[in-house]
């Protein structure tokens, strides 16, 4: 499917989604976090999209909020797209997990949980993966300061 066809199809599922192709090579859709799980499920199961391969899951600090970026590919139909989701705030950041849809997300989400402090609802195991259990703070957030271990020029 071309990007335009994908956009038209997704628009028939959900209203008022924010699409962009600016400054990126992929069709990018920003989805409210309430609709993330439903959209992800549809993207994987629908005959016309079949996004079965989650090849990259990135956490990001947007300043006021945190976010997650999903890079998707269909191994059979060969098209690709990007889904973005934003949390409500920094303090109680939480997003639904997609690891029941793409199983690779399980480890990726644990990594994002460690480094950004985003909770993934319904995730089977949210224990720390990379950091020591007693670590304080979320290192990849922009406001993280570690005067001992960081060299800031």
């Amino acid at each position, binding site marked *: 499917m071309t990007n335009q066809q994908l956009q038209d199809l997704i628009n028939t599922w959900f209203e008022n989604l924010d699409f962009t192709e600016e*400054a*990126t*090579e992929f069709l990018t859709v920003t989805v409210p976090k309430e609709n993330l799980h439903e959209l992800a499920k549809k993207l994987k199961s629908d005959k016309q999209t079949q996004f*079965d391969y989650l090849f990259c899951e990135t956490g990001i600090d947007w300043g006021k909020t945190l976010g997650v970026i999903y890079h998707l590919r269909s*191994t059979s139909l060969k098209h690709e797209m990007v889904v973005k989701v934003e949390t409500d705030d920094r303090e109680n950041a939480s997003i639904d997990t997609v690891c029941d849809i*793409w199983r690779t997300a399980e480890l*990726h989400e644990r990594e994002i949980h460690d480094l950004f402090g985003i909770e993934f609802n319904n995730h089977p195991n949210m224990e720390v993966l990379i*950091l020591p259990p007693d670590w304080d703070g979320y290192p990849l957030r922009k406001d993280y300061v570690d005067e001992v271990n960081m060299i800031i020029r």
Partner: protein
Amino acid sequence: MDYEAQIQKNQFRTEEYKINLGPQHPATHGVLRLNLTIDGEIIKRVEPDLGYIHRGIEKMCEYDSYPQIIHLTDRMDYLSSHNNNEAVALAIEKALEIEVSGRVKYIRTIVGELTRLASHQLWWGVMGMDLGALTTYFYGFRDRELINDIFEETCGARLTMNYTVPGGIRYDIHKNFVKRVKDFITHFKTKLPEYDQLLTGNIIFEKRMKSVGILSKEDAISYGVSGPVARGSGVVSDIRKIKPYSAFAIQDIDFKEPLYTEGDAWARYKVRIDEMWESMKIIEQLIDNIPEGNIKEPTKAVIKLPKGEYYQRVETARGELGVYINSTGGKSPYRMKFRSPGFSNLSALEHMAVGSKIGDLVAMMATLDLVVPDIDR
């Protein structure tokens, strides 16, 4: 008689307990710790515990300039160091819309394939060693040394080469490069069949590999595995074919993507052996035709990427390396993410291992070809 029935008959009870595999275990090839829950010798759970070599490379990138970032990527998957460098350089060139010369593309591809060969030689050596065949280790390292010597002559380093810079390569190839690469190919073509004689046809080895660590095609896709692991399960995943880059984009290079459908350790082993033949085929097609051209396109002294998001993929020896750059227009990225092949491949390990024995876990890890700094980053 199966295990459960035997327990019933003999009336003895077993209980689950936990043991650590690693972080200082020779079969984990680095500081990977696996928390195993086992019952007798049967694995019930595998929980990876990472972070023993986590250096926060993604955080460091947010404070470094783009040319500096290239140096950091050497230290992720150190056996695919050139491919990692190339991925970042390609992402920067994509953002700045720099078109490098054909000469640079050819040289990058040849060095990239040599890196893949060296990585697979080392993998073959240590994989044999993991399963008790020590001789393979010396064979693998003997042949890998020749490639390292070629790198040393051309760019001064043997492992973390830093040969690529944004806009080109650091130096032109050494005047002996072409001859030495050809000599190596001639030499290795006689040695690779020896690998098969020593290990591939060995009945003990075959029995330890076949039907071990099976990953079906559906699971391989769902777990996001890539590279030889995906190809062992029949998933078409070669970035060189899906999203051609460097010389693959400008030249019609004849090479196969080896695919096996069994999805077991044996299939992954065969994929890598086949890949070594294919890499030699690629180098042979390129080595005589390196075009003339600039070795570096001019770039500004301080590289600033335009605002936007950039994603670049390359095929390293372990699979698909993705570089995600989110730039706000500054001299450092706002966010840099490395989608490392090792991390995604590791996520499939528990699924493969549950229900098998500890000895088989070593065979599975060997054929996943884990490089721990690549997983931790």
